[in-house]
């Protein structure tokens, strides 16, 4: 169905496009590292957390735009909706889904860290420690989820 293909295309363009924007931001930042003035500030783990927060935020909101459009399709009946979201059910789409989950979980935990520092500024004196705790929390929440998601996809793939 044409409409389903168009929506799938939109989701795809949004996701790839935001990935490109995110890459541009990274390149911009690396140039800042070589002595150029720019939006960057101190460097170190705190700054990488900031980059990662920005990049994951852009990725997630770009996917959200497409996701609202595909969900809107459910109002037009099973034919359109089921064909549209079949994109998400291909075994090869699983890595993208896992990447999206990673982005959301990272952004969520990192956001919590930012909020803690804003409301209890003295905690920011230990920002490096908190950045590491946050990475550990991310790993604990994300890795098992990724394992279960990838395992089921692997069973359906030609390899499984």
């Amino acid at each position: 169905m044409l409409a389903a293909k168009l929506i799938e295309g939109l989701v795809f363009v949004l996701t790839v496009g935001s990935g490109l924007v995110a890459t541009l931001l990274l390149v911009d930042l690396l140039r800042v590292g070589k002595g150029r003035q720019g939006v960057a500030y101190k460097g170190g783990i705190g700054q990488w957390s900031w980059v990662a927060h920005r990049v994951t935020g852009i990725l997630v909101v770009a996917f959200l735009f497409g996701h609202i459009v595909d969900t809107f399709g459910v109002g037009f009946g099973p034919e359109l909706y089921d064909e549209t979201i079949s994109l998400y059910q291909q075994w090869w789409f699983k890595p993208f889904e896992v990447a999206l989950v990673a982005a959301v979980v990272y952004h969520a935990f990192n956001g919590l860290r930012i909020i803690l520092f804003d409301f209890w500024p003295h905690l920011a004196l230990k920002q490096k420690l908190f950045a590491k705790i946050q990475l550990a929390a991310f790993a604990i929440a994300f890795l098992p989820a990724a394992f279960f998601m990838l395992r089921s996809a692997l069973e359906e793939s030609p390899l499984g």
Partner: protein
Amino acid sequence: MATVEDIYRKHKPKAFSPGRRPSSTEVWWWFFMRISGVILLFLVLIHLYVMHLVGSGVERVGFDFVAERWANVGWRAFDWVLLVLALLHGVNGLRIIIDDYIRSPGARTAVKGTLYGLTAILMIMGTTVVVAFDAGVSG
């Protein structure tokens, strides 16, 4: 009573405001990012767990699945709050990023105008389908 401005002035690291007072709208958005962030933390993790992890994950999602789930007003309310908070939080985040990278006033207005227009359309589309979806009519 402490206003949001007071809370902001007290808690925002000093380094970020060298004697400058941010506009009160900006302070409200700063506050909104934190409040919506804390609420989203729960809503988003529940959403990911229920839709991507339980059972066979997204494989089981389809028209019938949505119809069954939305037969419960609780889930409709959950999804609508998630939609509104995530969209506002995400778009306000994009606004901040646009201000960081796009310096010319004309381009800024154009890009932000497009973004806000899109946001309004998406908010209407999302709200319409969550509120008005009727499996009997569509199915």
